[in-house]
């Protein structure tokens, strides 16, 4: 039973356009949300996060949106660059778990076409 779902395994976007990566979760107790980026043969790299008290967080070209009522999280990258090509994982935690372990989605592979 997947608690965190990234329904698109892959996404292709033209350079300069917007990339939108989506993530859905099932547990309304989740209260902290993160996005990680992963290149082949490397560990995931933290990108951006948002807590449940907010609905938007922006950092440069990256913006994360949180819709708690829909249990939906999205990452917008604009403008997309070829170096953004990677696998993107959403990760979610629940403070009540005590250990702040993250539950990850299966990832979406983004390809930015020059």
């Amino acid at each position: 039973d997947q608690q965190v779902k990234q329904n698109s395994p892959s996404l292709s976007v033209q350079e300069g356009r917007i990339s939108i990566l989506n993530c859905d979760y099932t547990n309304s107790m989740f209260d902290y949300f993160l996005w990680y980026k992963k290149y082949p043969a490397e560990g995931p790299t933290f990108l951006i996060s948002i807590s449940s008290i907010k609905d938007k967080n922006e950092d440069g070209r990256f913006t994360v949106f949180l819709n708690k009522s829909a249990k939906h999280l999205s990452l917008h990258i604009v403008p997309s660059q070829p170096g953004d090509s990677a696998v993107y994982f959403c990760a979610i935690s629940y403070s009540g778990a005590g250990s702040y372990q993250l539950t990850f989605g299966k990832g979406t592979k983004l390809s930015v076409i020059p």
Partner: protein
Amino acid sequence: GAGVSQSPSNKVTEKGKDVELRCDPISGHTALYWYRQSLGQGLEFLIYFQGNSAPDKSGLPSDRFSAERTGGSVSTLTIQRTQQEDSAVYLCASSLVRRGGYTFGSGTRLTVV
């Protein structure tokens, strides 16, 4: 060190053998996590260490898996009597605060043949 260091980077072992995977977290990071990523899957939580507290072992898939963290720093993940389904990339991460972005190592790719 500057980042989270894991060794070995690759390990091929025969079914039934024991393996040890090592993680050197970022100096001063009190929280340390082990995850694994099987082919085509997301990252699966295994175990969490925080300071001197009892570790959260809720993600360990069987009693063949164990982990320890010595002196609040280096951690070793041990898999006994390895099985083919143990083949995965094992990732270690550390963080300074309980909540926030982890810093991951590059992982150990374990192949059980």
